[in-house]
């Protein structure tokens, strides 16, 4: 049974409670955010005769490590510090990590993040301790609109489909993320986007 996340873009308001809950639970310093909320927006206006109609759009995607089926970070790590457990969760062992940051170069979701204080990589482990206690991961529990979910990825895909390629996320074929997205009405498929990330400073 492999675990993954689900995310409903149509429900997300971009409040970032998930991101803050993750930082709080894991006591993450400034500069490290295992879960981030990206705002993708675009559009301008259309002219029909003398009428100008705006077609602007904006939607949010809450993203963390997707505990991928083909985790490139695990493959490239020279130390075996980055490993994938039997439940599919990718975690990093600080006792092995040398802080070379090769996984950081490789991951298209910026999941492994470097902590200058310890000299090691850090990342989401889907709140392993909370799960062991029968609780939801902090980000899922904190979401006020119930946009975030988690569970066995097969069940999530059976219920919600298998879409994971939405702008501004990368092509899911690269790492095959265990992530299911329910798209926003204005969502654009990966690689065909006409918008841009509106909050790069927050990522």
């Amino acid at each position, binding site marked *: 049974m492999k675990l993954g996340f689900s995310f409903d873009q149509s429900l997300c308001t971009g409040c970032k409670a998930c991101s803050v809950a993750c930082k709080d639970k894991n006591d993450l310093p400034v500069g490290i955010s295992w879960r981030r909320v990206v705002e993708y927006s675009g559009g301008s206006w259309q002219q029909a005769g003398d009428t100008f109609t705006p077609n602007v759009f904006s939607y949010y995607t809450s993203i963390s490590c997707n505990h991928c089926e083909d985790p490139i970070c695990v493959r*490239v790590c020279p130390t075996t510090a980055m490993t994938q457990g039997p439940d599919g969760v990718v975690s990093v062992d600080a006792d092995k*990590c040398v802080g070379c940051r090769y996984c950081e*170069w490789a991951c298209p979701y910026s999941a492994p993040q470097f902590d200058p204080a310890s000299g090691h990589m850090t990342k989401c482990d889907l709140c392993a301790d909370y799960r062991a206690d029968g609780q939801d991961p902090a980000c899922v529990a904190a979401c006020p609109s119930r946009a975030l979910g988690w569970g066995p990825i097969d069940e999530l895909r059976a219920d919600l489909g298998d879409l994971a390629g939405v702008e501004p996320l990368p092509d899911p074929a690269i790492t095959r993320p265990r992530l299911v997205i329910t798209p926003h009405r204005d969502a654009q498929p990966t690689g065909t986007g006409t918008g841009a990330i509106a909050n790069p400073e927050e990522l």
Partner: protein
Amino acid sequence: MNTEELPMIIFTVLAQMSVGAFVVLGVVQVVAARRFGAAAVDKVTDPALYAIGPALVAGLAASMLHMNDVTNTLNVVRHLGTSWLSAEIVCGIAFAGLGFVFAAAQWFKWATPTWRRVLAAVTALVGIALVASMSMIYYTLVTVPAWHTWATPVQFFTTTFLLGTLAVGAALTGTVMWRTHHRTTADAHDAASAGATVPTTDLLASCLRGLGIAAVVLLGVEFLIIPLSITTLTATGGVAAESATVFTGAWFIARLTLVFAGAGLLAAFVLRYATTRTNPRTLAILTATAFVLVLASELIGRSLFYDSMTRIGM
């Protein structure tokens, strides 16, 4: 100009130069020994061989600064089956170790010349594997379009042989110049009695002609690769095109100018002076200057390479 990755810039360039110099020295020894004899060739090339070790050690020392927790350094070889970074480190250690054994064997004249050549060939192959694994670290990152291109291994190997060629040229002329000015009484006696000065001069001229031609050819390869790879990136669009913008501006122009001046103009002069057997001091200055200019150019080029790291995704 990227300075964050300075340890990797220094390591990759110095390690590639060391491999290139070792391979080029091997070619010089094999080719020149037929005409001038192994003993005469060893006398000119051995100091260059011994200079490779410190350069490689300096590169490996710089690479340690790339690691943010040196207490876990030994772990970097644990993922040999999958990680090209592990492969690079194993190959780097093996190349340094085999090179040290070969240098010791040359110094103390251990084993027969044939066995020493076998050891040199194995060391050279491990060196080639080192450069190959080094390039695969970047090439296999499908998430970085500027690195995931044929240009990465081709450029790494071009740097390897271009810098190696000019380093050997500088070392050979330096050795001969040093010996000319600091020749001991015994050496002078030996040289006079065996008439060794003329073969040494011929040997140096012959080697420099070959090295000059190689440098000019490799410069041509580099000047072919650079525009082709930039054009490919630009044509790909998206993140790749974004990466290509790094290859503009003053540092890129400086990189091209230096490599052209070093490997093109100066190597052509080395070729000419070596052919006409002009003043060896002029040759020494030319080869040393060419080497320094190309080394500076390759360091800038590698810095731009790291600057071009723009990743797919977010």
